[in-house]
Structures are given as structure tokens and as C-alpha cells.
């Protein structure tokens, strides 16, 4: 399958400072992996007219450059998290990044970002059920200094959740 226009465009977009370069073959391998992350090298090779060795080498190279991970993503509910809250936090008297790091250390906080706008920190909190809410708010969050206000929103439904681009941490 020939690379599409978008794929060629993606290749041209590479930053000149990038540590590794990716070509249209890499991008077409990623496309195959997005469709089926468990396809073996031989299956991908056949679909793209490459050899299995090339596919294997390319995948390893992108993984080593921390630009690709083929992973199983598991649902919040698979971990027993049935309550999701988005909490916007405004801070006072303490650097926002200090507060954010302390909040991020709580296991219930699954995502934390420093943000622009009316609040300073935006976080996603996952709880097993509503019984856990009081303990989290009263015992854990109240112990974090520098929080001025909390604006929680209960996530009642998730219509779409598709993130296939993300910061990739190095392999441990």
C-alpha cells in the first residue's frame, strides 16, 4: 500500500532537531499497527510489500527513539474505576507546579496538567465508587497546601476518548 498524502506530509513535518528521522515506510507501519496492534511482523510485511525483517527493524528503531509504543489500553472500568471526576484547581501562595506534583502523586489522580485560563491545574480523578469521594476530598486533597478552590465536575458519560498521540516515557 503506497503512503497516503497525509503520511508524506507527516514525514515532511519532522522537526530538523529530531534525534531520529521517520519516513513514509515508518508511517505506513504505524497505520497497520493502529488497525491491529497484534498483527505479527510477517502479516504487516505482506500487507506493505516489505520483508518481516524490515518491519521488525523499523518498529524497534521507533520504539528505541521513544516515538512508538504498541500497547494494550485498558478501560477505566477494567480497573474497577466507576467514578470519574474532572477537577479544576486554582492555587494560592504556592507554585502551581509544586501543587500539581503533589496532586499527581495521589494514586486516584490519573492525569494532571498545568493549564491556562480560569484555573491553574486540571486533573482527572478515578475512584472505585462514590463512597470513596469523601475520603479523597476531605482526607487527601485537604492535606495538599496551596489549593484555593476546587471546581469538580462529575463525568456522567464518555462519548469519545481517542488519544493515539501521547508523551512517551523511556523504557524502564
Amino acid at each position, binding site marked *: 500500500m503506497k503512503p497516503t498524502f497525509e503520511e508524506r506530509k507527516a514525514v515532511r513535518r519532522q522537526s530538523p532537531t529530531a534525534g531520529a528521522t521517520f519516513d513514509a515506510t515508518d508511517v505506513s507501519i504505524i497505520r497497520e499497527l493502529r488497525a491491529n496492534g497484534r498483527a505479527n511482523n510477517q502479516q504487516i510485511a505482506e500487507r506493505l510489500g516489505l520483508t518481516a525483517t524490515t518491519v521488525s527493524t523499523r518498529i524497534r528503531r521507533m520504539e528505541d527513539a521513544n516515538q512508538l509504543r504498541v500497547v494494550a489500553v485498558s478501560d477505566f472500568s*477494567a480497573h474497577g474505576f466507576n467514578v470519574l471526576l474532572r477537577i479544576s484547581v486554582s492555587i494560592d501562595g504556592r507554585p502551581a507546579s509544586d501543587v500539581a506534583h503533589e496532586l499527581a502523586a495521589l494514586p486516584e489522580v490519573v492525569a*494532571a496538567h498545568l493549564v491556562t485560563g480560569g484555573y491553574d491545574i486540571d486533573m482527572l480523578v478515578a475512584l472505585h465508587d462514590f463512597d470513596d469521594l469523601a475520603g479523597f476530598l476531605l482526607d487527601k486533597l485537604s492535606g495538599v497546601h496551596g489549593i484555593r478552590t476546587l471546581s469538580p465536575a462529575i463525568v456522567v458519560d464518555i462519548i469519545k*476518548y481517542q*488519544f493515539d498521540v501521547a508523551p512517551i516515557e523511556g523504557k524502564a
Partner: protein
Amino acid sequence: MALPQLDPLDTQLVDMLARDARVSNRRMAAELGVTEGTVRGRIKRLQQDGLIAFTAITGFQLERRDRLAFINVQAEVDRVREIAGVIADIPSVNAVLITMGQFNITAMCLIDDLDSLVELASDNILAIKGVHHVETSIAVKTIKYNARMAKITKPKVILEDD
């Protein structure tokens, strides 16, 4: 009290696959001391139940859209689900949550510049009938993010047997 839907073997499989989904059934079976058939069956069931999905996550070097932005939406209460569906149909929107709070819809997207956020928030989303107000905020720094846990919202293709 809701219980986790994974038993200990499922959890071990999900942990291995979350690190690298390209590990073979044979290797997982050997490491966990079960048969390849068990591994294959478990993975198939986890996928069918919508508990796991396989994907390729790429780093920002391969894409320029490297800024997460939130678009907080106040939409007409009796049309929230419909409006959330319209927003979810916009290809550049990565996530749409219906929430109970100051806003009733949160859209999340990855952007490459401010123009694309303005276009999305003001030209596309605010123009939807029933949307009263939008506010945007941009993540300037991500302190914690786990790409391996998500909401699996659409059934992925179930794997053929290896």
C-alpha cells in the same frame, strides 16, 4: 461496591500487554505458566468485553499536534447528548465527556497552534445549535498522564486466532 472485572490472570496479561502489545501468545503463556489457548481465549474475551483495546501510540516527534487543549462547553441541558455527539464527530476532537458541573460538556483535543483551537472552539463548536458558551484552556505542562488507561468507546476489530 463495584468490583474490578479482571481476575489475577487477566491482570497479569493486561500488564504484559500494556508494556508491549506485540509480545507473542507463546511467550506470555510460558511466563505465566498457562497454555497458549488460555492466553488467546483470555485476550479475545477482554477485547470482546471492551476492557482492552490495542493501539499504537506515537510520540510528538511524528506529529506536530502536541498541545492538549480543553474546550469547556455550556450546552442546552435537554440536548446535551445530541450536542456531545455532534462535537464527537469532529475529527480533530480526541475526547468528549458529558459532565455535571459548571459546564456540561468537555471536549479535549490536540492542537498544533492557537489558530486551530480558535477555529475549533469558536467556528465549529460555538456554532452548533444549542451551545451557549465555550471556554478554552490549554495544558502548558503535563505532570501526569497515563496513555494506557482510557475509556474504550468503540469495539475494535476482534483478532483472528494467531
